[in-house]
């Protein structure tokens, strides 16, 4: 295997191929980042919806619970295919990247919604009561009191999801998004050995994921001790 790779290497390590891989790596990163940023906004909306009370908003709460349970319990590939065919059915000409980004957003929204909810629930009950007694609405309480205290608990696991999605988005190759895994298949089809094509792609994934995972661990350690102050 090794001798074969050494023999293939000069043909493989061309400027064109390297740019091809680098662009794909950016697509992978963008897919995960975009999905997680929009997903965390969606997650915030879901979490806040579940914190409301009163019978009037019950249907909305049930919808939020249903959404969360559904997208946490359906595999990435199946959600991806559903999005793909749903966009196709509308007849709109939507780029494949958008289809994959919407998939990541839906799933990230469901998972991050639970993380945000956990963070908000960790804010002491007496903070909510003080705010209520001073006429803060639910959204005002979350904006001025709860989120400024909870973000330290929310950010590390949310970042963890971002790193996880870098790997999960490999499945976007199945609908033809030109991200890292797709490029691995293309290189393999061009005649490079599978060991070299997929080996190179694995190394690129590792080079992206490992430093980010380490950064995430450092982030968690730094934010953990003091839960009080916001600024």
């Amino acid at each position, binding site marked *: 295997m090794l001798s074969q790779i050494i023999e293939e290497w000069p043909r493989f390590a061309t400027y064109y191929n390297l740019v091809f891989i680098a662009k794909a790596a950016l697509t992978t990163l963008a897919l995960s980042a975009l999905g997680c940023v929009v997903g965390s906004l969606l997650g915030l909306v879901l979490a806040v919806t579940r914190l409301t009370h009163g019978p009037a908003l019950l249907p909305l709460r049930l919808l939020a619970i249903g959404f969360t349970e559904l997208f946490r319990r359906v595999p990435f590939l199946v959600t991806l295919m559903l999005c793909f065919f749903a966009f196709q059915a509308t007849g709109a000409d939507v780029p494949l990247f958008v289809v994959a980004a919407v998939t990541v957003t839906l799933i990230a929204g469901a998972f991050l919604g639970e993380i945000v909810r956990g963070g908000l629930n960790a804010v002491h009950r007496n903070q909510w009561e003080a705010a209520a*007694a001073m006429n803060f609405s639910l959204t*005002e309480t979350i904006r001025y009191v709860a989120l400024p205290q909870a973000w330290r608990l929310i950010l590390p696991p949310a970042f963890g999801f971002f790193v996880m999605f870098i790997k999960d988005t490999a499945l976007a190759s199945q609908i033809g998004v030109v991200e890292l895994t797709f490029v691995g298949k293309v290189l393999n089809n061009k005649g490079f050995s599978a060991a070299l094509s997929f080996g190179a792609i694995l190394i690129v994934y590792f080079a992206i994921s490992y430093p980010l995972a380490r950064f995430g661990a450092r982030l968690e350690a730094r934010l953990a001790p003091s839960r009080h102050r916001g600024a």
Partner: protein
Amino acid sequence: MHHLDIAGLDAHYGKLPVLSGIDLTVGRGDIIGLIGPSGSGKSTILRVLMGLLPPSGGAVKLDGEPVNYADQAALRRLRDRIAIVFQQYNLFQNMTVLENVTIAPVKIRKRPRAEVEAEARALLAKVGLGDKLTRYPDELSGGQQQRVAIARALALKPEILLLDEVTAALDPELVSEVLDTIRVLAREGMTMLIVSHEMAFIREVASKVVFMADGRVVETGSPAQIFDAPQHQRTRDFVSKILRH
């Protein structure tokens, strides 16, 4: 007309009744001392008045106007006029002392920041914390935090102030600084409902004392009546036990 009129007020935690048929009238400028054993429901009255626990029966009138606690708009109007200070201070941990005092007037009531800040500084100076404006709650002692909480409640310019065992969580040497602050307010004629275990203090400042047990009002009277000549056996037992130590 009474400032606050409570009639037949009931409340439940789940199925458990915690207040039964509470009647209480509060005149303008009255200082009501609520006393009684733990779990007698005295703090619960304040929570129900504030709308933090919905009443299950009875009526509350503010200046003769009935309050509908199920109506959000009515609840907001009520909370514009009544403020509460909690046993555990409940200061916002993510804000400085000054921010704690100014946040509600500025962000919720939309008053001009400069004006609110000037008032907040004056209030904090009045409670003896003029030099702690930029500190965070966890950098202050319990007594200091409680005085910030009082300043925060006063910044809302309430007509009625509810004080829920505000010295119960404090170390003994910090109690007097908080009580001194309340004494000043009492002299200024603010209507107050004070839940406290500090009997000497209640006796000193209260215009009317309410003794409660098991979610009911047992006896109401002037401090002298309740402490020196209680009518009911339960009141006598409680007062003698408290005064003995």
